[in-house]
């Protein structure tokens, strides 16, 4: 129909053009008249379609509830949604008719009728809006009508909306995480969450059950996250930095051409693969080595250790650190190096005393940017770090992290308003704030201390 509108508008403009003496006498090319007609046909009906889709569920549910007998509603006080769900299930054949009470079957038959009417009405409304829209433009087409400007305006609008999706996403994240977190903090005080030392979010399935009050002190998670991230950074920062230095200052082209892509492959390996590797190979290896060294006498050695997760995560971050450092090292002007070399320094002295100080802000920024990666990394820790919320600094013990808990709290079917699920959003909020903070700090450092050489 949109295509039809396009051709209608285009042919109308062509017809008018022949009247006034040819295409050159039109304000815009025929294409634009067609495009404008098509746009007026498509966009209003699409908007209606979207709004309709969001709204119709609400109205239909209300109609169904009105359909149900009073007695049934009283029976399941406050669980209207449940009944409506049953009606839907029966109508879609998920639930066999024989099992449902009569009033549900009746309501489901009614629902089918309503749904059919809903679809028909929607189709008719959208079609007529589309036709009206295109007619509106079609009538307006005259030789003086500035179709091109209108089309370009619409085009610019589309571009602008696309650009704003980034803002919408951020707003969406903030709202989704913040609202759920506020709900959580009405149930669990924020001080307990941030400073409590005990994490065991098991809620009662039935009332009065033993150990029904879950405790939501997130300190063990924060410590676990920082421990693993610290191990990862201890691995990644020196290796990544030295690799970048060697590649940009010492290695000749041939080695560079081979080694750089190989290191970049490390960045392209999916995290779930690293997680599998950590759990299957590295963790048992570290445990055996720990026991072999006789460390099990005076500390806990777990099969899922912080060290395994941290080491593998470090390997994952190496290319990130090295490519960022590579950029800043290359940005240090050659004249500085030549000057230092000319004064008789060895190469390593040039690097240590001239290049690195000049590149330091950039390198610091890169390290700060690698931080969120380590903190927010999920799959490696889910697969290799374990679930036990131990408050420990022992890298051979099993620890849990913020991301692991988010995953374990949210995977599977849960009641959405239980503190358990809400706690995951609160953890998400902490993670989001920390990431943004680190990112902001990194950009700030890079901007403030960057030396301008040209």
């Amino acid at each position, binding site marked *: 129909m949109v295509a039809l509108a396009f051709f209608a508008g285009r042919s109308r403009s062509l017809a008018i053009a022949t009247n006034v003496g040819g295409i050159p006498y039109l304000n815009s090319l025929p294409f634009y008249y067609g495009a404008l007609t098509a746009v007026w046909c498509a966009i209003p009906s699409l908007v209606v379609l979207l709004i309709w889709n969001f709204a119709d*569920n609400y109205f239909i549910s209300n109609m169904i509830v009105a359909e149900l007998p009073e007695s049934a509603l009283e029976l399941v006080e406050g669980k209207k949604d449940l009944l409506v769900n049953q009606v839907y299930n029966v109508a879609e054949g998920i639930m066999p008719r024989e099992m449902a009470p009569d009033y549900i079957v009746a309501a489901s038959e009614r629902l089918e009728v309503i749904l059919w009417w809903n679809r028909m009405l929607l189709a008719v409304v959208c079609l007529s809006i589309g036709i009206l829209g295109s007619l509106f433009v079609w009538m307006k087409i005259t030789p003086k009508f500035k179709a091109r400007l209108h*089309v*370009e305006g619409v085009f*610019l609008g*589309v*571009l*602008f909306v*696309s*650009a704003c*999706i*980034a*803002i919408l*996403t951020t707003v*969406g*994240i903030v709202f989704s*995480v913040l*609202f*759920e977190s506020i709900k959580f903090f009405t149930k669990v005080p924020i001080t307990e969450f941030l400073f409590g030392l005990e994490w065991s979010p098991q809620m009662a399935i039935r009332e009065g059950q033993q150990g029904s009050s879950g405790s939501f002190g997130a300190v063990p998670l924060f410590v676990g996250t920082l421990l693993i991230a610290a191990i990862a950074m201890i691995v990644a920062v020196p*290796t990544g930095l*030295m*690799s970048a230095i*060697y590649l940009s200052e*010492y290695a000749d082209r041939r080695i560079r051409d081979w080694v750089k892509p*190989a*290191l970049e492959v*490390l960045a*392209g*390996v*999916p*995290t*779930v*693969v690293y*997680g599998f*590797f950590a759990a*299957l*190979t590295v963790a048992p290896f570290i445990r055996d080595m720990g026991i072999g060294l006789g460390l099990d006498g005076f500390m806990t050695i777990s099969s899922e250790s912080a060290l395994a997760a941290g080491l593998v995560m470090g*390997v994952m971050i190496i290319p990130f650190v*090295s490519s960022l450092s590579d950029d800043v090292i290359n940005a240090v002007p050659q004249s500085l190096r030549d000057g230092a070399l000319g004064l*008789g320094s*060895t*190469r*390593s*002295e040039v690097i*240590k005393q001239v290049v690195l100080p000049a590149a330091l802000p950039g390198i610091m920024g890169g390290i700060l940017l690698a931080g969120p990666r380590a903190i*927010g*990394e999920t*799959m490696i820790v*889910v*697969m290799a770090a374990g679930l036990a919320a131990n408050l420990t600094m022992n890298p051979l013990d099993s620890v849990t992290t913020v*991301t692991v808990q*988010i*995953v374990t709290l949210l*995977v599977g079917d849960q009641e959405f308003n239980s503190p358990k699920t809400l706690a995951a*959003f609160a953890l998400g909020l902490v*993670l989001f704030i920390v*990431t*943004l903070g680190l*990112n*902001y700090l990194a*950009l700030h450092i890079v901007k403030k201390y960057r030396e301008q050489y040209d």
Partner: protein
Amino acid sequence: MTKAVSTQAELVERSLKKRYRAEKRFKIAGIISISVGIAALFALFIEIFGNGIGGFSQTKIKLDIVLDSEELEIYDVNNEEEVSNGYYEGVIRLALRKKFPEVKSRGDRRKLYSMISDGASYRLRDLVMADTSLIGQTKTFWFLADDDFDTYFKTLLDGDPYTARVDEKQRAWVDQLIEEGNIEKGFNTAFFTSGDSSEPELAGILGAVIGSLLTLAITLALSFPIGVAAAIYLNEYAPKNRLTELIEVNIRNLAAVPSIIFGLLGLAIFINLFGMPRSVPTVGGLVLTLMTLPTIIMSSRAALEAVPPSIREAALGLGASKMQTILHHVLPLALPGMLTGAIIGMAQALGETAPLLMIGMVAFIVDVPSWFTDSATVLPVQIFLWSDSPERAFVEKTSAAIMVLLLFLIFMNTMAVLLRKKLERRW
């Protein structure tokens, strides 16, 4: 004076050795760092390949099946229900008993029956239902072995048998089968043609691969146009004001937000607020779109910046409007760079697991999805699920699935590199 100079020279001379040693140490540290990275890469690949290669083959056992209608309890071959409810397990058990007549006790028989995969009777049923004339005949079939035997047989062939799950008697049966030539290792077709299963020998990746493709299709269809449009706006139209700055800061920040946060967004907004269903590729695609958008916008902007201003000025000078300049001249020139960025973004999305766990794409789904609104899982999530399974046979399945995933990623990245090489222009 000369003395002072000579001492200074001597000083330098003496310190030189130490300085050269420091130089050498520094260089070696660099080489070690690089070796650590490369060694980790090799260890990873060798481990995955070593484990995964076995996942592509499968042990099969030859049995002569007597499709006796009496045993099958099928008396009317035209009655579809009766044929489908036939006692196929029974005829397979009968064949096993005939092959090993010395097995008498109940416990031993149960062990014997466990040699053949649970899927065998379903396969037999499908064959019979497709061709009912088979009933009454004696046919030879190769059936899949159960995963414990599969692992034992494969490790036996490699010379280092894994015996933890098979006992003395079962090993003797396998030896007998080997002697008679009734057991062999073949290509694992089920791995590529079926969905997930709780039986390792029946589990395949087709469902996950299709799920991944459907999810990626949504992601590409949304993120590429939106990303390119946003890049055009920011590079060509945006006035220098607070709003533009806000957009740019947002894009940079979103690129650094951990992927799991996008999963939380998807769960709270798409599933709870908009009421979309869980575990469907559409929602997965939406979440991944938001996640890859910053990557695509940034690479598209770089591609737009690489188009020299002279092109724009020439078009504008000839009377083209700004939109015509961009759509007819700048965009076609920038497109190869944008496509490269899009492929890299898609590769990132293909390997992503965490946000999809949040929106429920982690369910155990046997059926191969056929449309965007079917319940589905994706390849990385399938890998995660299998790696959690206790059966040893799933280790090689997991590794094999990882090999397939890596193959896809290598293919996509090579394509990106080739595309860039081929279409790149120097101005």
